[in-house]
């Protein structure tokens, strides 16, 4: 049995220590926000936050999480009461199929906690680990800018 702290709650999980966090979140804790996209740390659909850092949950074995705080998208808010970053994504209608979006929100959350008013280049570089195949990048960028309280209209040329 391993102890995990997720979204402020402690859970006892019956999983082997080398199990990546992604499968524990989804299959043991019923938190389906983080998604399997590649399992190789290349697409970011599994992105969650550990101790303030955005990480690939598909490559983070639970053995590394003793005493560390895990935050998933479910911990930022709900459809009825979305958190600030989630609200920005809703306001910008920043989703198509939505498969990448939980990872995007978490990556953005980690960025904005670290850097309150990032430049356009900083946002793009910070979001680089996360892929979107539907082409929703422009709205995602607009949502990050909006969540940062920056001008929501056109992006400045880099």
């Amino acid at each position, binding site marked *: 049995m391993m102890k995990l702290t997720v979204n402020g709650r402690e859970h006892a999980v019956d999983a082997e220590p080398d199990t990546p966090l992604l499968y524990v979140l989804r299959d043991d804790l019923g*938190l389906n926000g983080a998604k399997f996209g590649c399992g190789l740390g290349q697409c970011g659909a599994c992105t969650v936050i550990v101790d303030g850092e955005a990480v690939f949950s598909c490559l983070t074995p639970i053995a590394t999480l003793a005493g560390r705080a895990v935050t998933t998208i479910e911990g930022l808010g709900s459809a009825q009461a979305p958190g600030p970053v989630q609200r920005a994504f809703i306001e910008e209608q*920043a989703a*198509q199929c939505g498969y990448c979006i939980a990872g995007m*929100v978490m990556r953005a959350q980690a960025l904005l906690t670290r850097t309150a008013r990032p430049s356009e280049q900083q946002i793009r570089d910070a979001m680089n680990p996360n892929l979107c195949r539907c082409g929703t990048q422009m709205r995602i960028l607009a949502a990050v800018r909006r969540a940062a309280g920056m001008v929501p209209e056109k992006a400045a040329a880099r």
Partner: protein
Amino acid sequence: MSAALSRRSVLAAGSGLLVSIALPGSQVWADEPPLPGSLKETPLLDAWIRVGPDGAITAFTGKTELGQGLKTALIQIVAEQLDVAPARIGLVTADTARTPNEGFTAGSHSMQDSGTALLNAAAQTRLLLLDAAAAALGVAAETLTVVDGVVHAQGGATRDYGSLAAALSLHVRAQPTGGLKDPASYRVMGASMPRIDIPGKVTGGAAFIQDMRLPGMLHARAVRQPSTGAVLLRADTEAVGRLPGVVKVMREGSYLAVVAAKEWQAIKAMRALAASAEWRESATLPEQSQAPALIRSLPARDIPVLTWSNPAAPAVQRISARYTRPYQMHGAIGPSCALGAYLNIFAIESFVDELAAAAGADPVDFRLRHLTDERARDVIRLAADRFGWDTKAPREPDRGRGFAFARYKNLGAYCAVALNLSVEHETGQIRLGRVVAAVDSGQPINPDGIRNQIEGAMVQAASWTLYEEVRFDRRHITSTDWSGYPVLRFPAAPDSVEVHVLPRPGQPFLGTGEAGQGPMAAAIANALRDATGARVRDLPLSAERVKAAIGV
């Protein structure tokens, strides 16, 4: 029949009626005109709309929400035509037990097929409800109004849909026309209602088949063949079968898979199985750079799509060109969508620019000169105008602008794209600047939904056009993960993208989901030519290919 025929008698006529209508200038048909959209295959109204005793509306569609905004758009249609608040409508999508069979959700057909069916079904349902209310209230149907599912008579009496529906059968055949509201009165259709699926997706709500959990569910992983036609010689199924949590190892011929209680157990077992597997490989793939030539040398049949000739004066100049693209893959992370008619439009719209250049004409003017469809011309003018297309604007080195237009499959939405880009001379790397599109989707249901789709299409096509090609050596596909199949990431997204919707009130819905990709590809190639003088006809327009074309 005269136009004064009452609604009731027409609607009650049923399927055996022979209708003969003389319209000015048209032929007389002996048979019924076809029903619009998917009503053709599913003509009964209650297959599409049900009204509950509490006034709740249930609508049915055989299409599915992929993130294209389908559910929201269909709800808007039903809400508008039924005069019911959107919140009152529950939409059932793609359920083999409950919804019409509308085939695949693909090819940008959902609005044309399902949207049109629901548009008419909802409108005709409203007529039936009004007729029932008229009878119950003893007034003429024309004097009634509806507000959010409640019918109001001029005197103040009301009847709600719930109580009306209890005495009404919707198990009747739809009619080819009738009952549609005047587009000028639309308040829900044509408004950018926020998508109902987004809040759940942004907060971790279950939205994908991967999120389904069934009692006693197990997890499986398959071991893929290393190359086409590889034959599995041996694999250590015994030992893997004893790994923790493994329920079964499956081997059938060369198919190899493992089922386990937990997902990670299945993954580890799959890896162990793959490590122990031995294959006999015999695939011979062509040398990657020779693949286009090889394909051209294979037996082929030309199928004329359209033959049209309009003899003109003898040619001043003949131009021919060949365009190629590599194997590309959907490379989906989650649900997948189709690639569309991307190469055809890339080729055609690049070639139109080559013709314009040979004629010494501006690319926008040239297109306007050769198109007679006014909707095409309007969309081209709108995109050019919003972009600020100015032939005489001075050129900066390594910067250019490009334009392209297409009507998706010649029956879908009209889309024109104008953009600028810069080329880094040392590397051949293209940087997309400002992208402006104009789109005519007929009667827009959700303009922001249209914009979202076209923006997405253009960014997606930018990735295909600039980067994507499946790599292979003489035996294997070597693009087995994103490092072997690079796609567009955030730093390479354009500086800005804007989409302008050209509304056509009352016009049929036109498929929009894949209308942006083809023009985007050609606009990039045309802008590359404008920036550097190099016309590149082979996709992708990778940095290497562009650098080779522009030289040192």
